[in-house]
């Protein structure tokens, strides 16, 4: 095990949505490499509380990489330097003694800052509400095995459904585009027979809502997928584009 380390943190502080905000520097000492990044923030906050200052607000909940709530932009990358993980899964052994770490909130017009590192991601909820579902009321369902679904399709749908809605794709994208998030949901449902009846309508409604929220356009840099903690594939975006074109050009109700 490597030794404990001393670090400098440069953290974005912003009291609320109206405040302009600025960076503040903090020193944390004796950080164990076994700590998670958020536990290091716990230590810092404990320090701030004992000094009587306001602790840093940051979103977090499950701390095991599945709820999608944690959202720090660390040293220029969403969820920090390691691939395929969320901030809560990032451990301090990825840093070294004497490092300066810059921590910022997700930046996008569609994700306004609430406080410090906390942003408002309800835009994602609204996109799902616009069409990210299959319209089936409770009790409507037939037997689960009545529609066979090939393992391949089920696996593709699952890989897309693994999205945790954290918003790292938006944060990473130079255009603050939400295409990876939106396409993951669209592609999950379009790979299942249950998703077919609403397929065209869904892609139109979700893309429309996405545009309304003020996310940028995709320019295929691939940053979203590279930074996605669940490694959602860019193929989803192409499939969504294809469906969207069909939904507008071919679908007679489009």
């Amino acid at each position, binding site marked *: 095990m490597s030794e404990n380390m001393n670090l400098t943190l440069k953290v974005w502080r912003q009291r609320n949505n109206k405040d302009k905000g600025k960076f503040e520097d903090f020193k944390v000492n004796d950080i164990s490499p076994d700590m998670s990044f958020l536990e290091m923030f716990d230590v810092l906050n404990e320090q701030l509380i004992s000094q009587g200052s306001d602790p840093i607000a940051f979103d977090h909940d*499950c701390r095991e990489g599945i709820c999608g709530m944690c959202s720090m932009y660390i040293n220029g990358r969403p969820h920090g330097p390691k691939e395929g993980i969320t901030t809560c899964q990032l451990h301090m052994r990825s840093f070294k003694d004497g490092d300066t770490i810059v921590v910022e909130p997700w930046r996008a017009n569609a994700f306004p800052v609430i406080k410090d590192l906390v942003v408002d991601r309800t835009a994602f909820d609204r996109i799902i509400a616009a069409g990210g579902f299959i319209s089936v009321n409770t009790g409507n369902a037939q037997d689960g095995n009545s529609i066979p679904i090939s393992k391949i399709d089920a696996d593709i749908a699952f890989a897309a459904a693994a999205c945790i809605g954290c918003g790292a794709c938006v944060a990473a994208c130079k255009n603050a585009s939400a295409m990876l998030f939106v396409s993951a949901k669209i592609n999950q449902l379009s790979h299942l027979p249950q998703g077919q009846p609403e397929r065209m309508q869904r892609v139109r409604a979700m893309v429309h809502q996405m545009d309304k929220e003020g996310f940028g356009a995709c320019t295929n840099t691939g940053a979203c997928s590279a930074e996605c903690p669940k490694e959602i594939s860019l193929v989803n975006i192409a499939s969504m584009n294809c469906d969207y074109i069909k939904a507008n050009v071919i679908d007679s109700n489009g």
Partner: protein
Amino acid sequence: MSLNSNIPEGKLEEKWIKYKSTVPLVNPANKRNLEILVIGSGLAGASAAASLAELGYKVKCYCFQDSPRRAHSIAAQGGINAAKNYQNDGDSVYRLFYDTIKGGDYRAREANVYRLAEISPNIIDQCVAQGVPFAREYGGMLSNRSFGGTQVQRTFYAAGQTGQQLLLGAYSALERQVGMGNVTMYNRHEMLELVIIDGKARGIIARNLITGKLERHFGHAVLICTGGYGNVFYLSTNAMGSNATAAWKAHKKGAYFGNPCFTQIHPTCIPVSGDHQSKLTLMSESLRNDGRIWVPKKAGDNRNPSDIPEDERDYYLERRYPAFGNLVPRDVASRAAKERCDAGFGVGNSKMAVYLDFKFNMMRYGKVEANKAGLNDADDNEILKLGKEVIKEKYGNLFDMYKQITGEDPYNSPMRIYPAVHYTMGGLWVDYNLMTNVPGLYALGEANFSDHGANRLGASALMQGLADGYFVIPYTIGDYLSKEIAVKPISTEHEAFAEAEKNVNDIISKLLNVKGTKSVDHYHKKLGKVMWDKCGMARNTKGLEEAINEIREIRNEFWQNVRVTGLADEFNPELEKAGRVADFLELGELMCIDALHRNESCGGHFREESQTEEGEALRNDSEYSYVAAWESNGDKWNLHKEALNFENIKIAQRSYK
């Protein structure tokens, strides 16, 4: 007040069917005028909110997270049980019912559990229809696995992310209703008080966590779907925000709390690595299918695990429970690990861990693979390499997770694991309708006490949450609301709302005005330590009596010396935490009181005074075959008992030998 569980008359297998066809209905026009508040948006909350909105009720749903999709149901890994019998291996509704009652060590209500088993197949159908991508066989049919030591394959799963997929299904149904305007969603809102008017639940006070503003919301009924209270232990597999506040406020307003001491400790979690630890991570139970658990035979053995020869290892589960071996139920496996570590045989830096070793099965799989590939003269290294591939295919994501957290490679050395608090079987007392003793107040999912008795079986939590939300409450709420159709929405100017809001304001300003020296986490950790040491895997009279006193002391100190920074009318996570910990400090005491009064061992509740000669849990059915429902009475609690009658199952002592 006497406890009436309102179980319908008739034969066990006919109760629910008959109930459904005779329960009073609310006509669609009236539904539009009835408002329901759903607190929490996990499996139970989201499914209930969506289903009730589909029926036409006006629903408001609340969650403290930034989106309903974050609820901690999302973290469930293993799967969801359902009595589909797709595998033709003899499963049935009765068998699932029987396994659940037995697994719960005969401390659950027969009628509720039977209904749960009966509904379970519908849940799978509903989820499939919503687009939940369950694992499939090549032929396109749903895949099953066995789980938690049952003898049939009835667990449906989506890789190691079943909870996530089910929650996202319920979330999409919920968002659909939000989009249609049938549900109003209140993200980043926390319920801080229940409003009771003329003895009935009529609304809540919620704090908008962004602005800090207190809001009054009226409802004809209030549903508490806020999950369990495992975070009373500070360290648990629960999410950081998981809390008991909504349930606790309801309890303080009159709802009884059922079996609070029944806590489930999960045997396979990643051990604590230091004082900085903020939460514990579960390693799926499925790992025990291929991992063998052992400790060194010599206490304090500091050698590398690979340097300890086979005959100096103690495979203690296989030794103590030859029939079930490493697959004994969770409570048994957890206690056995604690016993070894307490006796000084633990491993790792902290000595509070045991090995979960895959090498044996890697070799076994490796040999099979070598045979398949026709490699007859493969040496051990080659075989091991092939075996690692098989293990990787099965558990790759879990191994990666372990490596990520510990920095050790579990392919080359055994995992270190230790039990951790995982689930709370206790919760608000509810009747067959899922209604608490407060009319109009319901509790669903982990927040209620009802279906798991003293120990929950693996893959049953998801089943219960969704059963309650999708298929039980839409019927049972009609029984109550059909009598409420004449009730016009009560103005939130009503004095009961004003008083409730004042209570909340008082607590908030009290918390902010202590201006002491110690942080909220400081007290939470202190409480957690007492709970873990004295009301954890093993409990005894002396420890519990001490714990009660210690908790009272911590609580006093908390109210005199806590430091809560920031203001009331702003986004203030410290203030949120403070309120939750204040409630845990009361709940913890009640848990100890309950544990102390229940002088028997059953399921997750192990009283050292009540064990067999071999050190196994010993139930006392003649004295404790009841649900302990605690009524809050100022600083004290009054005990009410609901007797458990087993008419369809013969009670027996559990044995896994």
